[in-house]
């Protein structure tokens, strides 16, 4: 296979991987602060994808505009989810939290299935078939734009945690919960904010991905699993790790699609997961 073709595939995977990274980032942020394993992560993204599909069909607006209301809506959804449903479970044993979110995921996936049926939907923008020529490489315009937006979203998230007061307050909670409470931080509110931020990431990622893949209800669980694989490989709680892991998985998926049948390409990510857990269980970007 000519080297340009392989390069194209790698770049394509890298771009998709950036969006995966955004999705995983949302998960990592939630875990890093609230210490909850959000098992409904991918399902929430699927909801965002369907929302985009229908908003697009309804309004004809470019999904990149739809992105803003979706991000805000999902922030709100995440906030309320944490405040209303999950907060009472903060002190419960880990497995109870897990099962609660699993139940939520189950309801979401099947609600989508019942509402919209198993057939695939997609978002087809006018420039969907355009591509950029960068030297010898040929990259999809849509993919580049989506990846760019994902990077911007990640940057905004980093900036929030670094520079805003509530971002710093959230980090304080993560580092030292008791201290944060003593100082008078409203932990419940901050947890909910974090969940909102993480869910907003997932909402944005969903909107972006809906432009690149066909949307079916079954994507929910598949992306939840993918998000976890990425976060474990990158290191639970590491923001950089989530992004890097996303890129790694994006590229390996693309490359795997070359070597083995496309329907089996997730096996590659799986093999990576086992390797990381066997030799560096804390993840690639975390100290032990």
């Amino acid at each position, binding site marked *: 296979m000519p080297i340009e073709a392989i390069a194209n595939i790698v770049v394509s995977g890298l771009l998709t991987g950036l969006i995966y990274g955004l999705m995983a980032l949302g998960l990592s942020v939630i875990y890093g602060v609230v210490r909850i*394993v959000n098992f409904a992560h991918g399902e929430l993204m699927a909801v965002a994808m369907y929302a985009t599909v229908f908003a697009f069909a309804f309004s004809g607006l470019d999904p990149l505009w739809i992105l803003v209301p979706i991000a805000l809506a999902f922030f709100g959804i995440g906030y309320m989810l944490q405040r209303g449903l999950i907060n*009472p*479970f903060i002190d*419960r044993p*880990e*497995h*109870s939290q*897990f*099962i*609660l979110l*699993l*139940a*939520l*995921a*189950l*309801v979401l*996936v*099947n*609600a989508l*299935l*019942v509402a919209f049926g*198993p057939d695939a939907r997609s978002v087809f923008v006018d420039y969907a078939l355009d591509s950029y020529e960068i030297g010898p490489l040929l990259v999809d315009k849509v993919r580049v734009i989506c990846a760019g937006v994902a990077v911007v979203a990640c940057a905004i998230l980093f900036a929030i945690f670094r520079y805003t007061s509530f971002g710093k307050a959230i980090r304080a909670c993560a580092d030292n919960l008791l201290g944060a409470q003593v100082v008078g931080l409203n932990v419940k509110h901050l947890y909910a904010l974090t969940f909102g931020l993480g869910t907003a990431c997932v909402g944005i990622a969903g909107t972006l991905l809906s432009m690149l893949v066909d949307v079916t*209800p079954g994507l929910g*669980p598949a992306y939840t*699993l993918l998000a*976890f*694989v990425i976060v*474990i490989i990158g290191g*639970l709680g590491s923001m950089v790790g989530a992004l890097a892991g996303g890129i790694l998985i994006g590229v390996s998926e693309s490359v795997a699609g070359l070597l083995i*049948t496309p*329907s*089996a390409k*997730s*096996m590659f990510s*799986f093999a990576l*997961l*086992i390797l990381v*857990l*066997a030799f560096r*269980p*804390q993840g690639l970007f975390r100290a*032990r």
Partner: protein
Amino acid sequence: MNRSVVALLVLLGILLVLPLALDRYLLSVMILILYFAYVGQAWNVMMGFCGQLSIGHALFVGLGAYSAAALFQHFSIVPWVGMIVAVVVCVVMASFIGWLAFRFGIGGTYFALLTIAFAEFTRIGFEHFGWVGGTGGFFLRVTQQDQVDLMQLRGPPILFYYLALALATLAFVVCWWMLRGRLGFYFRAIRDNEEAARAAGVDVFRYKMYAVQISGGMTALAGVFFAFYYNNLFPDQVFHISRSIEIILAPIIGGIGTLFGPVLGAAVLTVASEGINQALSMAGYEVPGVKQILYGIALGAAIMFMPNGIWPVIARRLGFGRAYDGDD
């Protein structure tokens, strides 16, 4: 304790003669109840006793099923031997997953995620595994339904009823015996407080491994049963996360960590499930996914309002003590 034993024996007696009074449909419902009681008990060993959450238990059912089925269909090896292979395969798989997850004492999250990942990827793997049929399915040769061939596990449903009853009873007895000994005590100590368990002399890694190995091995038998009862296996069915969720619903609703919880949960759930099926088809709502939504709501409600299940509440009312007190 004596009251409990008498009650259990009475129950067993009823179950032994029950098939005489049931029609084909009700018999199949009872088989389902006993199957879920068994596999729920197997899962309970890992979770209820030792606190290790697995949401990928369908993996062991599937591996057990395919192992025995492949040996039977391709090499005419009787399921009683195939069973041993199935158990070995599942114990090895459980050991691998446990080793990856428990080595460095990282939290239970990793183990739970791994079980899901392994189940999911095994599903995809088997979809491409032509030797056992791939997506198209794997079929066992079926002979005359009326003749009971115990060696090859061929025969009428009533054979499978008694097999399922035997499995469920065996699981119950084995778990009861386990809880009385060091295994049970160490498992529960790990579940309640790993660090304190270590300080009291428990080799936490080793015992967690025992828990997952025993649970996986027991579940393998459920897989063998599944294969020979239904006679067809599809990766998308057998390994799917929905199966795993069905497996855990019964013990969660019935009562995690108790002996009778999985049994009660299986009964309640299967009856409710069949009831829902009938209601949905009568109302014309046979849309795929509705039942799963109800499962999800049931699971959420159970974990929110009755995390210990219904059995502990009922047991207290009826005056049954805990089955595994320190006293003999």
